[in-house]
């Protein structure tokens, strides 16, 4: 068992190789390589329209790729059969940019939806776990019976995170989790992601524009540009980089404000 644990920590949880994605004649991702290590929070940045969301959606399988291979939990998603794929999907959770909560279900039903589908659990346990998840993401139990249309933007993000976490996944994808939140709310959310990552042993793949998140929440940062990863490493590596976009991003007016 010790050997297995050893192997698991050294193996990347997501291994993306030579991914090419094309929409019509525009090539969005061009031979991109990326590894995400087990247990880390990877911040994924890049200019608007560079294809950050496209890469996330390609890994999850929502956007078809022209070439390349994607391995998640050591399973090649192209050559896997349905059962293997299901198994992988059960072990990841996705937080979409707009939350993507099911608007006709209450918060409780939203969080219980994946459990109902994948687990054979009594209603009592599901209700209790729902309350536990709501507490974890910092919401009051009263929220459970509300509909998504009755929630504020920040609450929607939190409920969506609770739904993404409902099956205790090993990996979560967060697509701009702090966009549209006030700075205090965004800071809380970063802390929340950090805490949950520690408590549940999560691996987090986070697309973000938020410099604060990069400084406070992320272990490692990958930068997308021209359809490739132009840099990957710690925040110190990013600041030391000579790449013009990176220099502007990490030494601009807003970045200086964050650092001081």
């Amino acid at each position, binding site marked *: 068992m010790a050997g297995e644990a050893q192997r698991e920590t050294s193996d990347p949880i997501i291994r993306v190789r030579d991914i090419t994605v094309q929409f019509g004649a525009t090539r969005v991702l061009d031979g991109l390589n990326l590894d995400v290590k087990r247990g880390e929070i990877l911040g994924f940045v890049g200019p608007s329209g560079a294809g950050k969301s496209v890469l996330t959606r390609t890994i999850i399988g929502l956007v078809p790729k022209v070439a390349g291979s994607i391995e998640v939990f050591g399973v090649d998603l192209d050559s896997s059969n349905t059962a293997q794929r299901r198994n992988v999907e059960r072990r990841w959770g996705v937080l979409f940019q707009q939350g993507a909560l099911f608007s006709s279900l209450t918060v409780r039903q939203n969080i219980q939806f994946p459990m109902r589908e994948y*687990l054979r659990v009594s209603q009592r346990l599901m209700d209790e776990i729902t*309350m536990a998840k709501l507490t974890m993401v910092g919401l009051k*139990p009263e929220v459970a019976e509300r509909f998504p*249309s009755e929630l504020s933007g920040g609450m929607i993000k939190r409920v969506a995170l609770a739904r993404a976490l409902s*099956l205790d996944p090993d990996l979560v994808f967060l697509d701009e989790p702090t966009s549209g939140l006030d700075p205090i709310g965004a800071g809380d959310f970063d802390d929340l992601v950090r805490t949950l990552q520690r408590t549940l042993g999560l691996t987090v793949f986070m697309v973000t524009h938020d410099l604060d998140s990069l400084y406070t929440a992320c272990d490692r940062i990958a930068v997308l540009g021209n359809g490739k990863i132009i840099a990957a490493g710690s925040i110190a590596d990013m600041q030391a980089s000579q790449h013009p976009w990176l220099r502007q991003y990490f030494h601009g007016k807003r970045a200086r404000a964050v650092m001081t």
Partner: protein
Amino acid sequence: MNSDPKLERIAKGNALALCATGTWTASFAPVLERMVADAEKLAGTPQSIFIDVSEVAKLDTFGAWLIERLRRSLTKGPVEAQIAGLSANYSSLVDEVRRVRATAVVDGGTVTITGMLEQIGRAVAGVGGTVAGLVDMLGAVLAAGFRVLIHPRSFRLTSTVHHMEQVCWRAVPIIVLITFLIGCIIAQQGIFHFRRFGADIFVVDMLGVLVLREIGVLLVAIMVAGRSGSAYTAELGSMKMREEIDALRTMGFDPIEVLVLPRMMALVLALPILAFLGAMAALYGGGLVAWLYGGVEPEAFLLRLRDAISIDHFIVGIVKAPVMAAVIGIVACVEGLAVQGSAESLGQHTTASVVKGIFFVIVMDGVFAIFFASIGM
């Protein structure tokens, strides 16, 4: 790596000690729940209670919560249960779960007789609300119409033309096809039954009167309610959901003037045109069947038709069209603006729009029939 979870009691003098082993995760939840329920009965009056979790191989929120549940139910007596042997990896998870307040979840509505009666009462009262909503919208549309008459420059011509294309021009093929087929069927059935009395030729009278007075306009109105009424409701409803209507309002535009009036105008102009085309297609279809199936030559058909119908029949039919269009448009816009935040609500209101639209079209048709009968047209 995954081993079956176990919960065993170990003798430890006066203390109650439970030892948890194996994988405590969601996939074993049913087994875990049963074991925990069994263990909860072990209470007794021990001096101290321990739950030893040092042998647990894997723990997730489900497992952690069940251990916490067990701890809480064993604590009922004077002695507090302790969790022992917690590894550093899992201690924060267990701490997190400990913060959870177990709240009784409200059970989603049991069906009672009073509840059912209440629902019926609300539905009946809702009918009054529906009518009030329609009248309200009619008033708002008329008011917007007068404002536009006074300031003709504020009329949205482009939008009206766009909706004309959607509800009129693009509807022509399907409307013509269906009314043509209905004309064929009426003629065929007429000939089939009239032939027994040797009254084949009277099929022309029946076809002419029926198509021009009733079927042409009614059928077209029902199809427009299904085709364009639903589209109006869905368009306005999704604009409402995305706060686009609120945005218009804050910019100083009246949603009725910008969104509803052009749609109403388009529909009121479109339905008479479509009803006319539909009536012609039905007459053509009927004539074709009368010729091919009943042996009525086209010349004889036209001659007979000229005798059988007068301009009154045509007017009776076509006068109804704009009124029905207004009813369909108002119902569709009221429903569209009543959509709430969820996708389900959008679906419900779109359905309601079509159902109510068709219902009111038929009611209007009945009212017109009584009116025309009493003035002798």
